[in-house]
């Protein structure tokens, strides 16, 4: 929405950002306000655009895997698995089963730490700082576990095209078990702290409402979509890594808490339940993990030579803690990919802010903005518009293309 239009329809505008204490990352909001009520919402991401895709098209897949870790510091594994899976499909690499299980374990550990991080940030935005410190205190346990398994606290650098770079040894298994038991013991306590607290209930129940219909229309993904009642989860719908062997069901807000209403409170419920689900998945993985290799090809030069010969395109889809994340890669017989596109989960979720924020009070903005767990460093990509012709296909265009293809085939 343009600035002039905002000025005409609402009494005054409130700009927030790009540097603002309520925002952890730079993004520029413009709110059209009528008294305390938000009427119009506009936002401008793009402050953290670093041109990662452009850089990737000048590097080889083994180098890019380390770049994908730094697309986002919170969900690095998601991006690396997603990119690695795309390349593996193009090259025709069969990932060893053990590597798939290790990837799944790390993926779920990352989900635990990311959801706890979010729970802390949400409590902080509500002004409940003791809960923020508590959530981050228990998060440190998962960070320790991740550090033990990968060697790093953040930006793990463990995924490699064709597998993982470190094995999980028998000595590490009791440590993981201990960590899981710790979180299992905590779940009830966390649920009591977050869900039975009257302050959190008052601030979050029926605020930041997103209907199921809106969620579907705006292509919302991940916990935000599930909180609105959409039964979708890439792990369940299109299993990857070891998820095909495991029992994974999308988590919706249970009926005893009032069913999926699509408010901020439901998003808290979904994320808390997903921590428990992740613990269960890691348990299943530990039980079912087969012995064997962890890399398709340990020799880097051979791996790169195989990648260099590859020709084709593929998409790697992964369920990030924030929703579906997608990497599109096209290789054309060169060292570097010919094309690389990242669709991060927050990119799909950004538009849901508009119906969520409209009609809410100014003071509710921080928690509603935080409720989709935005990650802007994931999101800030760029689209090149050449000769003023944006390549956007509407539904009509797609129908036309489809009909033309039928006609072509009939001839």
């Amino acid at each position: 929405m343009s600035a002039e239009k905002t000025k005409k329809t609402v009494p005054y505008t409130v700009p927030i950002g790009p540097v603002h204490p309520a925002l952890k990352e730079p993004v520029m909001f413009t709110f059209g306000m009528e008294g305390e009520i938000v009427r119009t919402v506009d936002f401008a991401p793009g402050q953290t655009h670093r041109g990662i895709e452009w850089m990737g098209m000048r590097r080889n897949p083994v180098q890019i895997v380390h770049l994908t870790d730094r697309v986002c510091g919170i969900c690095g594994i998601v991006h690396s698995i997603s990119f690695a899976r795309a390349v593996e499909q193009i090259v025709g690499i069969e990932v060893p089963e053990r590597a798939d299980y290790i990837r799944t374990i790390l993926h779920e550990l990352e989900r635990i730490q990311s959801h706890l991080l979010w729970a802390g940030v949400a409590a902080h935005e509500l002004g409940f700082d003791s809960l923020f410190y508590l959530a981050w205190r228990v998060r440190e346990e998962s960070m320790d576990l991740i550090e033990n398994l990968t060697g790093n606290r953040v930006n793990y650098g463990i995924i490699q095209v064709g597998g993982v770079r470190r094995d999980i040894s028998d000595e590490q298994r009791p440590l993981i078990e201990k960590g899981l038991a710790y979180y299992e013991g905590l779940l009830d306590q966390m649920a009591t702290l977050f869900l039975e607290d009257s302050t959190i209930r008052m601030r979050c129940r029926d605020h930041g409402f997103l209907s199921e219909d809106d969620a579907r229309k705006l292509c919302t993904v991940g916990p935000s979509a599930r909180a609105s009642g959409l039964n979708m989860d890439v792990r369940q719908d299109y299993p990857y890594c070891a998820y095909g062997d495991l029992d994974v069901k999308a988590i919706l807000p249970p009926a005893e808490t009032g069913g999926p209403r699509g408010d901020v409170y439901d998003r808290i419920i979904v994320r808390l339940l997903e921590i428990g689900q992740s613990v269960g998945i890691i348990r299943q993985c530990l039980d079912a993990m087969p012995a064997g290799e962890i890399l398709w090809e340990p020799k880097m030069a051979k791996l790169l030579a195989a990648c260099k010969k590859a020709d084709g395109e593929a998409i790697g889809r992964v369920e990030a803690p924030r929703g579906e994340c997608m990497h599109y890669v096209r290789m054309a017989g060169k060292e570097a990919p010919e094309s690389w596109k990242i669709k991060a989960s927050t990119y799909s979720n950004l538009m849901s802010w508009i119906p969520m924020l409209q009609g809410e009070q100014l003071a509710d903005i921080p928690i509603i903005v935080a409720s989709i767990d935005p990650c802007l460093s994931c999101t800030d990509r760029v689209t090149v518009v050449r000769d003023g012709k944006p390549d956007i296909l509407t539904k009509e265009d797609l129908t036309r293309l489809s009909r033309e293809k039928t006609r072509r085939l009939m001839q």
Partner: protein
Amino acid sequence: MKIPRSFNRSLWVFHLNTGSCNGCEIEIVATITPRYDPERFGMRLVGSPKHADVLLVTGPVTKKMAPRARRVYEQMANPKVVMCIGTCGQSGGVFYDSYNLDGPIDQVLPVDVYVPGCPPRPEAIIYGVVKALEKLERLEAEQ
């Protein structure tokens, strides 16, 4: 180490993200949480650069954020210290050949303390703050 005089005035920190991957952000927030707890020395994150003694800058400074970083720096009162957290602020790191960077940070702001790492551990950040304290002590003596 001798406890510097700056300690009389608790160190307040403002955090500025100039296009970082969030890795350093979460480590900075992890630094102020109970396991490390520098708040017992009065160190805390504040919401306005006008209240801060130390500016923590993360990220490789994208073109859009460079003028904002300068504006934030100008709003801080003297004496002030700029800390650069993370490798990408020092050299560009993995983003060294990007087309959208005005950084590294020392091309935009005068940096006093560098904390390397991608991202640095909370212990390293706390060590950096100790170095910043020593520098503030020197700056105060000069004033």
